[in-house]
């Protein structure tokens, strides 16, 4: 173990100070928290020497001694830009990491959507097999830190053979009243056998001091479960955001996970998918629209372990100003995973000559009867297309906006809740206008 640096001691101290709290928790959880803290202490913050962090420097996060956020008041009006009136369904709101009953909207909190605290108290057997198990095995230091320190989180349990029409909306908001606070949002989705549901996570902020969101979502989709998962990242432009989404799928399970990143100063999202049984299918849609000096890094990994599984990844980025995008996608096909069908694509549209993208697809294939393809593109607005639109009367900026929209349209349209799709369409347009306005 390396000498405990100042960077780590902040978190070791916090962990130490919570010993009392942990005594109230079940042994299995304490064990996983201990392991998480140990993993984080051993590895520390990843640096650019790690291949997987080569283009993303987390030093600004590592250098800052973040305090655990607490308190803070938020009104429903403050949350309006992040809520969807057109969508019915349960809503859990977490303010600075703490569950807010008044802002939430849950008919019977104990039924299916609940907080980790409540469920732990009431029925630990349900979550013991899952909570913090996968992420601990992943050996991801930031996810490990989350496991060690998370307090409130959401547990969404979709019972077997059940279909939910309305999505569950989980809102994690940081108020950033004081600088340098951190939250460790935690989500566990347990999709029962033959169930069907949608879960929307919103990660957002309303203050203007720097804060850090370090989120972990674990999704377990049992046989023939169908899950549509959204991760809408709308942090403020002063925010740091790191996340791990870990998805484990059983036989015939079908999961779609959408990752939308519009906010944040420095963002790193990891998605790990393990297709554990035959005929499982995972679709990963990613859209990042960034400008100014935003830096967004998306890393995905799909692990095909069994035959006849399918994975589709489409990540698209719109980058303006001095924004920097990074994409690292990996497809692993294990020896048993014959008849794998895996597709991965990363496309980037650079709206400014100062924006930049690093994209790196990776294939590790150990089976011989598979269909795998991957590709990446980095391009600009097509001059010919822009001229065509302008020759019909559309203004230059209107033509650019329309072509940018067109670039992102397929990903927007894949979000099946119209209010979500519309919201991000207008946010995309607003972002373009904002960038132009700030140009000299």
């Amino acid at each position: 173990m390396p000498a405990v640096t100042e960077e780590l001691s902040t978190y070791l101290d916090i962990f130490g100070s919570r010993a009392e709290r942990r005594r109230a928790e079940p042994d299995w959880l304490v064990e996983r928290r201990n392991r998480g803290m140990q993993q984080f202490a051993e590895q520390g913050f990843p640096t650019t020497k790690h291949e997987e962090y080569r283009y993303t420097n987390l030093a600004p996060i590592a250098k800052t001694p973040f305090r655990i956020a607490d308190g803070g008041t938020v009104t429903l009006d403050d949350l309006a830009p992040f809520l969807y009136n057109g969508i019915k369904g349960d809503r859990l709101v977490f303010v600075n990491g703490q569950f807010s009953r008044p802002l939430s909207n849950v008919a019977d909190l104990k039924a299916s959507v609940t907080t980790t605290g409540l469920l732990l108290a009431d029925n630990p057997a349900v979550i013991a097999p899952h909570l913090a198990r996968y992420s601990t095995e992943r050996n991801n230091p930031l996810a490990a830190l989350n496991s060690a320190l998370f307090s409130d989180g959401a547990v969404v349990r979709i019972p077997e053979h059940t279909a939910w029409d309305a999505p569950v909306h989980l809102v994690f908001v940081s108020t950033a009243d004081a600088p340098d606070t951190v939250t460790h949002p935690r989500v566990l989705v347990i999709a029962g056998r033959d169930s069907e549901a949608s879960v929307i996570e919103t990660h957002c902020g309303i203050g203007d001091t720097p804060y850090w969101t370090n989120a972990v979502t674990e999704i377990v989709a049992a046989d023939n479960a169908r899950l549509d998962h959204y991760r809408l990242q709308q942090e403020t432009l002063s925010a740091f955001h790191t996340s791990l989404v870990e998805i484990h799928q059983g036989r015939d399970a079908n999961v779609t996970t959408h990752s939308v990143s519009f906010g944040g100063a420095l963002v790193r999202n990891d998605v790990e998918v393990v297709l554990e049984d035959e005929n499982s299918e995972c679709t990963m849609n990613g859209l990042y629209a960034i400008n100014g000096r935003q830096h967004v890094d998306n890393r995905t990994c799909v692990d095909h372990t069994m035959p006849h599984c399918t994975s589709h990844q489409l990540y698209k980025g719109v980058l303006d100003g001095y924004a920097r995008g990074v994409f690292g996608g990996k497809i692993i096909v294990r020896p048993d995973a014959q008849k794998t069908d895996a597709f991965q694509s990363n496309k980037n549209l650079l709206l400014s000559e100062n924006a930049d993208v690093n994209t790196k697809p990776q294939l590790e294939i150990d089976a011989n009867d598979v269909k795998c393809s991957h590709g990446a593109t980095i391009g600009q607005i097509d001059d010919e297309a822009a001229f065509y639109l302008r020759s019909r009367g559309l203004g230059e900026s209107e033509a650019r906006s329309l072509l940018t929209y067109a670039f992102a349209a397929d990903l927007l349209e894949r979000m099946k809740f119209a209010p979500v799709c519309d919201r991000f369409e207008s946010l995309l347009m607003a972002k373009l206008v904002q960038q132009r306005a700030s140009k000299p």
Partner: protein
Amino acid sequence: MLEIKNLHASVEDKQILKGINLSVSSGEVHAVMGPNGSGKSTLAQVIAGRDTFEVTAGSVTYLGKDLLELAPEERACEGIFLAFQYPVEIPGVSNLYFLRAAVNAARKHRGEDELDAIDFMATAKKKMASLGMDNQMVSRAVNVGFSGGEKKRNEIFQMALLEPKLAILDETDSGLDIDALKTVADGVNALRGPERAIVVVTHYQRLLNYIVPDFVHVLADGKVVRSGDKSLALELEDKGYGWLGNGARPELAVRA
């Protein structure tokens, strides 16, 4: 309406237009012919405002305005329409959305109210019927997956909706089957009127049987080397371009 004087244009230091003179008055139909690579499309694109081409000398006046000062969208709003030789595919943008944006841009420019989706559809439906365009085609992404003929018909559909004062058709007839050619010609003829002018760039006399021109010009090596009436087109069909001396003899250039 359109007055082109001594127009020179180049791309990447390559001179393509080498002193074009052309004058088009309202109510007229002009045909522009000439060998491949002679600069016909370049001329059309320069009039529409494509900035790939640098105008190095000369002037273009349109309805009393210095056209070269205007952005492409301003030219469009002032009534200039170019039917592209190679219409551009734009994935992700629906034809109808695009056309409504175009129609509304022009309306806004003229100080008129913008059309909502319903009013626009009503107008569009009429034009669609006359041009044999189906619903499915107009709702698809602009030109994506269209056959060559469908793309050309889509250009004429756009023209019909935008009702330009000066329409330039760059080889809209090339590669069309006979029915499509008639449809295109009908679309153009429907637009003809004392207030409008039409310039058709074509390689084929056949189109000119349907859209009868008042003047025919021959472009060669970046210049108008010959102008005449519709009989010139017949003569070209007969004899090819060889007898015009390949543009090397400027004394053959006659102003219409």
